[in-house]
């Protein structure tokens, strides 16, 4: 709270009165969330709201208005107002809602006000008995509501339409109304109409401006009309209209500031085109949310002087749009050199999502977007993408690992175009234990290799964002944080525990105070006074508590339950299925159910779960099914989704409720605080439940344990997020010991160090000789984020170890080069090359698709991979499953996978017959095989094939073999289909069809392929679907559209 709390009006009533009012509002929110009734004395809330409004007016009187104070007080008023019951009288209702909108805008939270409007479905009924002035006021109110709502341009047109109607109706009703008024009041009635007509004109102007942004003097125009309207209201002595107008003026001025058209006034034609496009699409965007406005318009995101900008903002603050504007600016700035942009997203799923969104919004304005697979190899299609000079992409979406490979492969030279901007989504992953180093090194590499590149890092809040911006751009760093406490939605967070004994226990929900955007209110509430599941208190573990509380809260559609392990998820979902009598009649759910049944078998548990609108989401499902489940949840089609904590990394949709049976990652410790808040931030969405609810089950088999766990949890949720620490720094500090020999050559077996070694190797390759490398070593190290923070004595040890490693590299220049292009350390490569020789693997083995036939040498290759440190863990994990797979079996599994065997068959053939078999099968394939075996195979190919001995066509085929493993198909054309999100089960058939239509499948752009798929007749789709039990052609098409993010 800032200075306004010292305001004299604010201080006129004691603090307790404020606290009481806000406690009442919070308590009401919580009771609502729990579906409990609570009697409230609204007059106390109204009183405080009144005082705050007066306080605000006093603040606005000041000559030097502090916008932050204005926003903060307005947010509070908004909170109170929106908790009040809706007035019954229609005029009172209109005024009440307008007030709510006013304060949501002034409080920089217009999207909350808009949500209120939509949730309450506000429309003021005009009745026959209404006098003309009442009718005018009501219609203007409705037009104002449309102006705020504006789901698309039709709403704005409708707002203008309402005003035109009034102009027509004036002719019919005005005179009669005036004549009906007693002479004493005629003048005043006239003033009232004058005032309202000006307001009508204002709405008209605003709606037109929001539609096309063409009125440059919109502020002056509405300012003039407001002046007249206020003056007339004053003359007419219409006090409340007068007050309303004064506030509406502030609101609409804010709306102008928020308008996306404001961005077009600063930059270039690309931005204007883009804005035209997003304002005319079906789900249009007309206004920027506060964080976006703050970053773009107030903090100079688009100022080319800043080479590196770190935007740290909470979940759901619309970071993608921020990135989009920055991308357009960068493309423009580097248009002469044909500059391009890379968007780095942390997971395969997010790469897909982001790419689809960018394609959808950029393609119509002529900006080409492409994505690359997460595989650490470059297949022939991707290679074409980079080298095709005709059909160049402007934006590339990739994972950090892939980008690192591209950079090391000297992408800028290959493309002959400079990288203009690197957007790094979820950049806080720099601190992530296993992948953090990769990201840090990627940024260091870009800094080193791409001299023109700018950076935009998007992260949730990090304390030391300045430091990070400075690392990337020492001269003009910029870190953007919110200046205001901005909450995307209301949330409550609490612990769930039982009290009682034996089978006689009650369930409680106790809210906890946090440092974050949650409702700050302590209250212990009874969640259920009946025993919801037949278990004794001492046997109530966290999982069972989660089940019990989900049963209790099942009315809140869209519950996300977090279980610790995949097995827990199945068990929770199963229990809920048995206990709950839920219904789900929805075409989308039905479609997904059919697809799952086709892919996994009719008896697969998820099929049954879906009949009640329950689903699971974890590593034991294919990528496709996970996308489909997310899609259902996002669209509010699921009652309950049970997922593992890993969903925190990819979740991109809001849910009504989160019940957590675990706040630990599987097999590791507590969830990092930042991840926890990232997940929790998703609770609360536009829907019936305004308040997002988070319940965390705590172990409470007896009272003592309950108390201990409650204390622990209370502490956990109060922890503030710490500074971002480099994994390299941690690694160096943990590994290097004083007084002990430290050599990098002995670290290659460690995947984290291996990534660092590659960085060094890459730097080495760029130096003309060892001398230059040694000279620059210090510089290379300083390019990383972590190095300068390492304890100085350890810094020295690391420095000399790197120099020593340079000598090793100098002795093995050939391997050093290869290391760069494969991502494996030099040591690994040496050993692998030896193995290839030892096993007598010949070039022919590695170049044809016969590799995926039953008697091929693939088993030997798998054997090699199981000993490559960078991927051995994954490969060995596949082996460790239920059936203890041998290398030979993994080779056969891979072969079957590539040759199109269905998951159901793969699971029973290699993993057993139970439910867990399917889990293991999916985990093995999607979690391990597709990444590791792809990477391994492409490296082995590089070691075992002499490229100059092959024709271009042969090379193309060779480079697609690893991609076959990645996509699980056995032809180049099928790979192409998979790249465009065609489900694996029909990709081969479609590929064949595609090849018939195009001679050279390697030269098509993804846009053309998509067009081709779009244009397929239903007969063709039906043909693809033949023999796929249950799924029709149109079902497949629908699934493709979902996977391609087109719905």
């Amino acid at each position, binding site marked *: 709270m800032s200075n306004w709390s010292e305001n004299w*009006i604010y201080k006129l009533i004691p603090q307790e009165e404020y606290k009481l009012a806000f406690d009442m509002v919070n308590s009401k929110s919580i009771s609502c969330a729990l579906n409990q009734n609570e009697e409230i004395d609204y007059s106390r809330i109204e009183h405080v709201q009144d005082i705050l409004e007066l306080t605000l007016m006093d603040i606005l*009187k000041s000559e030097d208005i502090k916008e932050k104070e204005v926003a903060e007080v307005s947010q509070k008023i908004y909170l109170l107002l929106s908790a009040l019951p809706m007035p019954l009288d229609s005029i009172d209702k209109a005024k009440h809602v307008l007030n709510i909108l006013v304060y949501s805008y002034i409080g920089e939270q217009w999207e909350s006000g808009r949500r209120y409007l939509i949730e309450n479905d506000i429309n003021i009924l005009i009745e026959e008995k209404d006098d003309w002035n009442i009718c005018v006021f009501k219609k203007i109110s409705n037009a104002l509501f449309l102006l705020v709502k504006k789901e698309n341009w039709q709403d704005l047109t409708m707002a203008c339409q309402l005003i035109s109607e009034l*102009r027509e109706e004036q002719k019919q009703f*005005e005179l009669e109304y005036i004549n009906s008024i007693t002479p004493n*009041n005629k003048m005043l009635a006239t003033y009232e109409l004058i005032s309202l*007509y000006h307001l009508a004109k204002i709405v008209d102007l605003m709606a037109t401006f929001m539609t096309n942004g063409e009125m440059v003097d919109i502020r002056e125009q509405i300012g003039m*009309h407001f002046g007249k309207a206020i*003056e*007339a209201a004053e003359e007419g002595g*219409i006090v409340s209209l007068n007050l309303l107008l004064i506030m509406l003026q502030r609101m609409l001025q804010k709306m102008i500031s928020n308008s996306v058209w404001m961005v077009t006034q600063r930059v270039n034609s690309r931005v204007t085109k883009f804005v035209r496009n997003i304002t005319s699409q079906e789900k249009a965007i007309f206004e920027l949310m506060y964080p976006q406005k703050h970053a773009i318009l107030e903090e100079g995101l688009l100022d080319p002087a800043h080479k590196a900008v770190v935007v740290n903002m909470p979940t759901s603050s619309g970071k993608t749009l921020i990135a989009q504007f920055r991308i357009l600016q960068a493309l423009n700035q580097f248009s002469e050199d044909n500059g391009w942009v890379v968007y780095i997203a942390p997971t395969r799923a997010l790469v897909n999502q982001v790419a689809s969104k960018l394609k959808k919004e950029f393609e119509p304005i002529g900006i080409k977007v492409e994505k690359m697979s997460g595989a650490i190899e470059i297949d022939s299609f991707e290679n074409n993408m980079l080298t095709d000079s005709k059909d160049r992409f402007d934006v590339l979406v990739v994972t950090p690992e892939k980008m690192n490979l591209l950079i090391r492969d000297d992408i800028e030279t290959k493309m002959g175009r400079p990288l203009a901007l690197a957007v790094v989504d979820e950049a806080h992953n720099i601190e992530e234990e296993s992948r953090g180093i990769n990201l840090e090194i990627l940024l260091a590499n870009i800094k080193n290799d791409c001299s023109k590149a700018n950076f935009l890092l998007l992260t949730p809040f990090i304390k030391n964002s300045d430091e990070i911006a400075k690392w990337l751009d020492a001269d003009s760093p910029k870190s953007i944080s919110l200046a205001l406490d901005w909450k995307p939605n209301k949330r409550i967070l609490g612990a769930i525990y039982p009290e009682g004994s034996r089978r006689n226990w009650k369930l409680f929900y106790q809210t906890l105070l946090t440092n974050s955007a949650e409702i700050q209110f302590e209250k212990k509430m009874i969640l259920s006074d009946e025993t919801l599941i037949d278990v004794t208190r001492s046997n109530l573990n966290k999982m069972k508590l989660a089940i019990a509380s989900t049963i209790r809260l099942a009315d809140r559609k869209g519950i996300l339950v977090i279980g610790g392990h995949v097995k827990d998820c199945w068990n929770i979902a199963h229990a809920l299925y048995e206990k709950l009598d839920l219904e789900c009649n929805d075409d989308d759910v039905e479609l997904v159910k059919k697809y799952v049944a086709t892919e996994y078998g009719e008896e697969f548990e998820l099929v049954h779960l879906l009949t009640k609108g329950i689903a699971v989401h974890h590593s034991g499902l294919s990528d496709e099914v996970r996308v489909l489940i997310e899609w259902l949840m996002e669209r509010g089609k699921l009652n309950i989704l049970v997922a593992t904590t890993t969903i925190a990394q990819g979740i991109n949709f809001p849910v009504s409720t989160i019940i957590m049976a675990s706040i630990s990652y599987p097999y590791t410790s507590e969830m990092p605080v930042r991840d926890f808040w990232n997940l929790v931030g998703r609770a609360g969405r536009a829907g019936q439940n305004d308040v997002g609810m988070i319940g965390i089950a705590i172990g409470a088999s007896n009272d003592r344990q309950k108390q201990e766990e409650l204390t622990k949890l209370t502490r956990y949720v109060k922890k503030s997020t710490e500074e971002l620490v480099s994994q390299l720094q941690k690694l160096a500090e943990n590994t290097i010991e004083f007084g002990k020999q430290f050599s990098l050559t002995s670290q290659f077996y460690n995947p984290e160090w291996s990534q660092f070694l590659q960085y060094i190797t890459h730097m080495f390759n760029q130096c003309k000789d060892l001398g230059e490398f040694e000279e620059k070593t210090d510089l290379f190290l300083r390019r990383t984020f972590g190095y300068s923070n390492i304890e100085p004595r350890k810094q020295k040890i690391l420095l000399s170890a790197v120099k020593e490693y340079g000598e090793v590299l100098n002795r093995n220049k050939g391997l050093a080069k290869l290391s760069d292009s494969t991502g494996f350390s030099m040591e690994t490569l040496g050993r692998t090359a030896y193995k290839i020789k030892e096993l007598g693997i010949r070039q022919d083995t590695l170049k044809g698709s016969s590799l995926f036939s039953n008697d091929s040498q693939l088993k030997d290759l798998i054997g090699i991979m199981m000993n490559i440190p960078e991927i051995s863990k994954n490969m060995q994990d596949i082996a460790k499953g239920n059936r203890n797979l041998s290398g030979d079996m993994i080779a056969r599994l891979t072969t079957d996978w590539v040759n199109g065997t269905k998951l159901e068959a793969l699971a029973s053939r290699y993993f057993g017959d139970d439910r867990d078999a399917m889990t293991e099968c999916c985990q093995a394939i999607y979690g391990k095989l597709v990444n590791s075996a792809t990477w391994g195979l492409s490296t082995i190919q590089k070691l075992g094939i002499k490229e100059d001995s092959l024709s271009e066509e042969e090379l193309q085929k060779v480079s697609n073999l690893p991609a076959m493993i990645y996509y699980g198909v056995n032809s180049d054309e099928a790979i192409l289909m998979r790249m465009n999100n065609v489900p694996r089960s029909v990709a081969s058939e479609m590929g064949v069809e595609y090849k018939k239509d195009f001679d050279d499948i390697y030269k098509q752009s993804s846009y053309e392929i998509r067009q081709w798929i779009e244009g397929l007749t239903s007969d063709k789709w039906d043909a693809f679907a033949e023999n796929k039990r249950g799924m029709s052609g149109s079902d497949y098409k629908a699934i493709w559209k979902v996977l391609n993010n087109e719905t």
Partner: protein
Amino acid sequence: MDANEISLDVEYEKRDENGKLEYEGISFVKDEFPVFLKQTISPIYKDEEYNVQMKEVAIDMTGFDSVNLQAVFDTMPKVSNFRIGELVAEKIVESRYNAKFTYNSDRDLKNPNSNNTGADLVGFIEMEDGAVNFLFGEVKTSEEQAAPPGVMYGATGMIDQLVELGTSPDKLKSLVKWIFIKCTVDKDLLVQKYIKEAMQHYVKDRSNVQLIGVLVRDTNPDEKDLKNRYNDLRKKIDGQHNVQLLAVYSNYKMKNGAWEKLI
């Protein structure tokens, strides 16, 4: 003639057990009322240039038609008894009860046909104990012979309007905000002092608001004008605010446009 200089006779008054005024009837000394109208009220009227202002707020540029509205301005009589009554009430309340009206109160704040009605009198009052409170009031002017006259009754009558003022929180809140905004532009230090003090009292306790009803009459003074009406009012307000009534007897008939002619 300043309002302080008028000689007014107290015809009747009623105080409560603590001596606080509940209502009173006062009358102008014969022939002083016309002088008062001429010297005090008439100049205020001269400032009111409705038509000029109408042009300022011209609605042509809103896309609406201005013909009917312009006609109202053109045909409106410049002077009316009810308007004179309001101005008289304001001046007398100001001088007699240490009240202060902050703005150029040349307009009625009330528009019965709109849903946004205000009050006839909006200002401050210095109470007998020296405390300053907000003052809101209603004014009725009548030449009817009956006591009390019809303007005291019904939905648009004085008592109901005062009750609405006192019991509808929204109305009071709006008026307070309105006067608060008005005071912003008022450089008068006394006004600044008053608003601060009145606001303090209002915020701490809503009942610290003075409501007043003023009846302006050209008949002979009669306590029946106020007596029962006051009791009714008090009952309905039920202690939520201080209330008081005042009847002003002009001692000068208004028939045949006698008052208007003096303006």
